[in-house]
């Protein structure tokens, strides 16, 4: 086994765990009960995806590693999630737009990954794709509803686009282990899903009467190789506290 397979698997796991954690922060704070339930459900799907990837990563790591040790005992520099997933929650427009950008990415990614030569990655993707389909549908509807809604909701969506757009480029900028994963036959070539993603965003923005930002502008990167915003440290402090203070605690 090459280290790329482990890094690639951890990258997929970290993406799911971190955006899942952000979504879970909405639990009890959603704008209305049904939407609170919706985003909490989506958070739960992500925790499930993360567990499957971490369990496999633990197998690859050996030395007694478990899904829990990988989630709770690694530091920020070891996390390989995209920066988009760790940005703090702002308003509902920003949250649903981030969800839309990310779900569209995951939808096309898992569509390819389910044909991976690595059976475990393929099986996790095949399973998760069904749920991601719901996420994409739900989040597209929110982008359209708010974009083509009231003056206020449109302003909020426009602000969210300004805030998030420069974090979308990283989704399609392959890290070394992703390039290696393509060479070794189990990874997804991001340049191939980029076009589909942009097409989906174009169609939804059009329906939402939102202006499409330029494709080739300067983009933030770093998360995939462990160079994070300061926000990730706060997430980990929150999430990892218990296992750090009481190692091995179970309930």
């Amino acid at each position: 086994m090459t280290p790329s397979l482990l890094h690639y698997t951890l990258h997929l796991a970290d993406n799911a765990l971190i955006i899942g954690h952000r979504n879970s922060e909405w639990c009890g704070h959603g704008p209305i009960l049904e939407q609170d339930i919706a985003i909490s459900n989506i958070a739960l799907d992500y925790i499930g995806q993360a567990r499957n990837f971490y369990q496999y990563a633990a197998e690859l790591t050996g030395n007694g590693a478990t899904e829990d040790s990988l989630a709770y005992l690694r530091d920020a520099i070891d996390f390989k999630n995209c920066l988009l997933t760790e940005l703090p929650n702002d308003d509902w427009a920003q949250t649903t737009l981030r969800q839309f950008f990310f779900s569209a990415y995951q939808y096309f990614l898992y569509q390819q990954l389910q044909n991976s030569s690595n059976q475990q990655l393929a099986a996790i993707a095949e399973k998760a794709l069904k749920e991601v389909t719901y996420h994409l549908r739900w989040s597209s509807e929110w982008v359209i509803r708010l974009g083509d809604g009231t003056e206020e909701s449109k302003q909020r969506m426009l602000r969210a686009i300004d805030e998030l757009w420069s974090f979308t480029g990283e989704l399609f900028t392959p890290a070394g282990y992703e390039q290696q994963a393509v060479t070794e036959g189990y990874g997804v070539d991001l340049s191939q899903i980029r076009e589909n993603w942009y097409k989906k965003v174009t169609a939804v923005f059009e329906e939402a009467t939102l202006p499409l930002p330029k494709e080739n502008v300067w983009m933030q990167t770093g998360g995939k190789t462990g160079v994070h915003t300061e926000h990730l440290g706060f997430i980990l402090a929150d999430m990892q506290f218990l296992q750090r203070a009481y190692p091995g605690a179970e309930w």
Partner: protein
Amino acid sequence: MEIKNNDTTTHTTTEALEKAVWAILETVPDPEVPVLSVVDLGVVRKVEVTPATTGSKGSLLISYTPTYTGCPAMDVMKMTMQMALQEAGFTAVQFIQVLSPAWTTDWMSESGKEKLKAYGIAPPQYKQAVCTPDSFQQEEAIPCPRCNSYHTRLVSQFGSTACKALYQCNDCKEPFDYFKCH
């Protein structure tokens, strides 16, 4: 659960043991939808028995598949299965998670669907109508489990558990869960 069988020797054959195990698993409920057993749900995919040479009832390998990736009921189901089997004398039980092929509501038993409806949850429709990412699709026509009216509306794609959507009947006004196609 006690397996009642006068001829104890048949228990030693693999086939009889397998049958006994399936019968036990049929009594293990889904903690969130207790009218359904793990067998009704289609969560148990395979039971493999290795008969023991003497005394004990042999060892079991049970392949299961989660309904939704993050379903928190899965761990509880596994534990309940283990306990029920242990009570019946199967002490060596191993579980293996199988993700592919991915679980689908097509695997739910017909009797399971009837039990769901009687419990007040609309069972999954026979043919999956909307499982694409396209926004604002026409809603599936789901009959109300209380008055059977098709005059119902979707409240939310996401319900009280990962596997359900929220609906309301426009006729009898009953809000109800729909076990959505997956």
